[in-house]
């Protein structure tokens, strides 16, 4: 009724016929919009289903293996004979922690220093633009290429070790740490720097005692996310870490192992016992990475509240 009232302002007779036409068209258009909206909802479900399925499988089958031999699963050495049932992923847990820890010690200081240059010194010069671009490209280098690179340059000379794997992981982490740190440095307000200069502090001192502390929580959480990703990597370790079934606490000599390597090795085994250990290792690895991610979230949340 109101539609007629509106059109009455223009030419009377012609407009009255347009009105039902318009509603008809509109309903098809809104149906189309509703269809597209439900397709969007369907794609959300399509993402959720495999995620739930994977996590369900890891927990259901992993818990069996872990609980069955608790706490031996986390402590015992890995059975040399694959078909023998029973626990043992201790050396793999230690290997993962060693390789990831060493990689963090290499990549985080380097990455933070690099980001400091990009943001505090070379903001727009050619060198820093090139580095920024190349760091972006480097995040896309396949992890297996990093592994082979370390094999060629390190492992051929010094043999298998957890440290070789750590070098490969550090190569993967470096561009991520640089990117995350630079984003955080951007958030540090300029008046902090100016206040520091105003009392006569040098630039390097300003960066070390004003800028970096202000950005610290963000840098920590960004680095932790990189650590979580590195802990789950397999391909870089494949060529540099070797294979071991016993504890090796020295990261610099002798082959080592890792949770991801054990999952990869046991996944295609035809022995159920080996598959069980793979699921148990998967559960351990998933819990480890989620724990690191949670800590990162916690740090970010505290940071956000303080700001």
């Amino acid at each position, binding site marked *: 009724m109101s539609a007629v009232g509106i059109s009455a302002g223009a030419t009377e007779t012609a407009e009255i016929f347009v009105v039902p036409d318009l509603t008809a068209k509109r309903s098809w258009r*809104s149906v*189309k*919009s509703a269809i*597209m*909206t439900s*397709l*969007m909802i369907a*794609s*959300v479900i*399509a*993402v959720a289903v495999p*995620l739930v*399925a*994977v996590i369900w*499988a*890891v927990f259901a089958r992993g818990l069996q293996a872990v609980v069955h031999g608790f706490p031996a699963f986390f402590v015992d050495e890995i059975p040399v004979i694959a078909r023998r049932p029973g626990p043992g992923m201790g050396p793999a847990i230690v290997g993962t922690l060693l390789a990831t820890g060493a990689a963090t010690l290499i990549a985080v200081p*380097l*990455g933070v*220093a*690099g980001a*400091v*240059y*990009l943001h505090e*010194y*070379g903001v727009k010069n050619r*060198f820093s633009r090139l*580095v920024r671009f*190349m760091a*972006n*490209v480097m995040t*896309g*280098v*396949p992890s*297996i*290429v*990093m592994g*082979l*690179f370390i094999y060629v340059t390190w492992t051929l000379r010094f043999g298998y070790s957890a440290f070789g794997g750590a070098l490969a992981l550090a190569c993967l982490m*470096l561009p991520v740490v*640089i990117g995350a740190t630079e984003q955080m440095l951007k958030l540090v307000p300029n008046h902090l720097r100016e206040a520091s200069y105003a009392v006569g502090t*040098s*630039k*390097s*001192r300003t*960066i070390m005692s004003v800028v970096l502390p202000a950005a610290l929580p963000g840098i920590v959480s960004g680095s932790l996310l990189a650590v979580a990703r590195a802990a*789950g*990597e*397999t*391909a870089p370790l494949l*060529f540099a870490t070797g294979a071991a079934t016993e504890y090796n606490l020295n990261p610099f000599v002798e082959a080592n192992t890792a949770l*991801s390597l054990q*999952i*990869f090795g046991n*996944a*295609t085994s035809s022995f159920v016992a080996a598959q069980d250990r793979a*699921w148990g290792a*998967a559960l351990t*690895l*998933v819990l480890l990475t*989620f724990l690191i991610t949670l800590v990162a979230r916690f740090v970010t949340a505290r940071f956000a509240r303080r700001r």
Partner: protein
Amino acid sequence: MNEPEIDLRGASDYKDRAFAKMTAGAAGVVLLILGLIAMTITRRSLPVFHEMGLGFFTTKRWSPPDSLFGALPFVWGTVFTAAIALLIAVPISLGVALFMTQVAPPRLGKPLVYLIDLLAGVPSVVFGLWGVLVLSQHFDLGRSFLTAGIILAIMIIPIITSLSREVIDTTPPGDKEGALAMGTTRWEMITETVLPHSAGGLVGAVMLGLGRAMGETIAAALVIGSALGQMTVRPLAPGNSMPAVIANEWGEAQDLHKSALIALAVTLFAMTILVNLIATGIVQRSMKRGQGT
């Protein structure tokens, strides 16, 4: 009065310069590593190119005992599985990104971000394990190009989704409100304002996903089936891809065989670098444009 001032500046200037040099050196490590990767692995791949010449890229047969190394089927497998993965992942990622930005109320948006982050946080080898022991056995898929494509799709959905979301978020609200004020439906508003505005960035996001899919090793190595010399378009056939071959054959490889596997890595490196260069360029340009307007 002036002298202490000059002194002070001199001292800190020296330290400052050392500090600046040190950080510049750290930034340069990125260039050093990329350069070293290209140089060292190319050098190690030379023996196989001496043996095969450019036939390495055109030969269909791969037979280490005969010193015959043709990479063509693996290049095909890499492209084929990545294509399947994109075919599945792109519509789903776009749907999720549009849902998060245009449909969902903020209260629902945040858990969705967590969901995507959670998916990104699952190690690839765990997806591989699930693919080989659950997916390939329960749905009659076997180990095949398709299974690998599905697993790769699950793995690249997070990166495409989160990048798309960022790009879509740069659409000026005024454009969207203007469209809605004209009486468009939500979908028309999306096709008329959001998609044209973010088209460049979305292409970039998809290409970054493509780079990921091509380079992903472990999950593909577990589920692709490791068949030699398959140059088929049948998605259910077992096949192989470059990273999968490297991971699966490395253990028993000797001199020339190793060199051939490293040559595969060089090829993969070149292909992913190319895709990433283009993608990074597109994304950066469209982000800049998004901020400008």
